[in-house]
């Protein structure tokens, strides 16, 4: 028996929608028992991906789902979809934007670093769908 899944969809059409994505994701993370640090990582990644959807994809949607498998840790899955021009060179786009200074790379590679799982489907003219998964963990006592 698996716990009920609630899908939360946010349209991303304007700057103000980014902050809404943050809040939806934050609430889900909070309800799944994410630590403050994990919460911040999740929200930061979501915020960057939402910004990419708005700026490079011409807007789209963010869909967040909380997956509470029985016995296992909670998994927060967020998918960002747009119908924009797509990314022709994914490898290049995934290079660490921090060091190369590119705008897109910063969010994309940063989000990949922060997420536990990361997937991207895109191509020239095919739009882009980025999925990140964050897993709730017991705070490790050092």
């Amino acid at each position, binding site marked *: 028996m698996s716990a009920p899944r609630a899908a939360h969809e946010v349209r991303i059409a304007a*700057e103000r929608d980014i*902050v809404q994505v943050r809040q939806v994701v934050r609430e889900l993370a909070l309800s799944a028992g994410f630590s403050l640090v994990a919460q*911040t*990582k999740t929200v*930061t990644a979501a*915020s*960057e991906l939402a*910004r990419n959807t708005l700026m490079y994809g011409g807007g789209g949607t963010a869909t967040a789902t909380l997956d509470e498998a029985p016995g296992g840790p909670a998994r927060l899955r967020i998918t960002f979809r747009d119908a924009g021009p797509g990314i022709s060179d994914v490898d290049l786009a995934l290079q*660490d*934007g*921090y*060091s190369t200074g590119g705008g897109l790379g*910063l*969010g994309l590679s*940063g989000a990949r*670093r*922060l997420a536990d799982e990361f997937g991207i489907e895109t191509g020239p003219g095919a739009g882009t769908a980025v999925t990140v998964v964050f897993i709730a963990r017991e705070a490790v006592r050092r």
Partner: protein
Amino acid sequence: MDFREQLEPILRALRSSAPPRWQDVAVRLAAAEPDDVVVQTLGELVEQLEQQQEELSWHRAELSQTNAGLLALHSELDQERRHNAFLDDVSRASATSLDSTEMCAALVQLLRARGVADAITMWTLEDGNLQAIGDEDAEPAQSTRRALATGEAAGVDTARLSVPLTAGPRSLGVLDFHRVDGIFGESDLATSSSVAVRVAVGLRNINDYKREHELAERLQRAMLPRLMVPDELDVVARYRSATSGVQVGGDWFDAVTRPDGSAVLTVGDVTGHGLDAAVVMGRLQNALNAYALEGHRPALSLQLVHDLLRSWDIRSYATAVVVEVDVAENVMRWASAGHPPPLLDDPHGGVRYLEGENASMLGVPFHQEVPEHEVELSPRSSVVLYSDGLIERRTEDIDTGLARLAAAYEAARTRSPQKRAEHLLSTLLNGEAHEDDVCLLICQLLETSD
């Protein structure tokens, strides 16, 4: 009413279903009295909206900057963690082997993977001179010497960076980093010295271990017997230690040729195992060797060594058999102190154990005379000396073991002493782990040319 300019774009941007038309509003505002409170209110609201808008944009900017900062922080952390993991691996590679060549190989793999260097040379100080590990003929480069002399890294802006290896105040050597393409810069100093610190700890342990290991090994090697036999004899000896790792035990064999051409063969067994037994063994072997060379007969040699052992302030016992082969006279004299009997293979008389009265073990706390026996030797006769480890089994009586040895020796009759020795060991020990040391010596008279 200077809020009108701001009001117009606000009104135009409204997304409500029926926004008021700006023209209509503008007409009304133009006609309004200066103290019209509704218009005044409109002005206040516009100003309020403007201020709020500004504040909102500040917040947006801050949020996005902070986000970017968080990403950058995680990127730095990633680098830091990878760096720490790398140094951890270096520590591990430096500590997990006490063999310097293995350590170098493990290091190079790490340094290559990390892009720190394509190769390394580890120089250790031997008697004040730099010696490259794995290449005895290598000459240190100028930067290597400089690093050693100054205690600081040398070779920045070249393809070879030399970093001193120090443990506390002691200089242990130098680590050279090499790049095939490219040179080392200032920015490589921190990493290379972090690596060197860890390598130095490992190197110090390697040095300490090596020193002790070499000392122990050379001392043991010095205790191993040297077979010195005349041309008329073919002598082969084997030693199998029950203790793994140690090269010497309480069992020994020896063969010495006297100036008169006779040979003296010995097999002995000090009670107990390990190092204490080995030390006593070394002294007994050495003394028996000296007595034999002095010319003493087997019985007298055993007699003297019994007295000698009693004179030492140790409580040790030993069994030994001494055989003198007089090649000129074709006679063999032997004496035994508590040792299993020699096995003789006479082409005419067959395989048999030599029987004769034994003395007690060497070192027993009383004076004793050692009886000596003599037996004639046919050409191509051979004699087998051995320690009890070859024949004794926990589950059998000793006669069974003796019979098995004789049968096995007989079975390999046509073979050379070497082959017969291997045959005995494989047949009697059966490849099993043996609980006692095993010593075996076979001596065969060769066909003499005269």
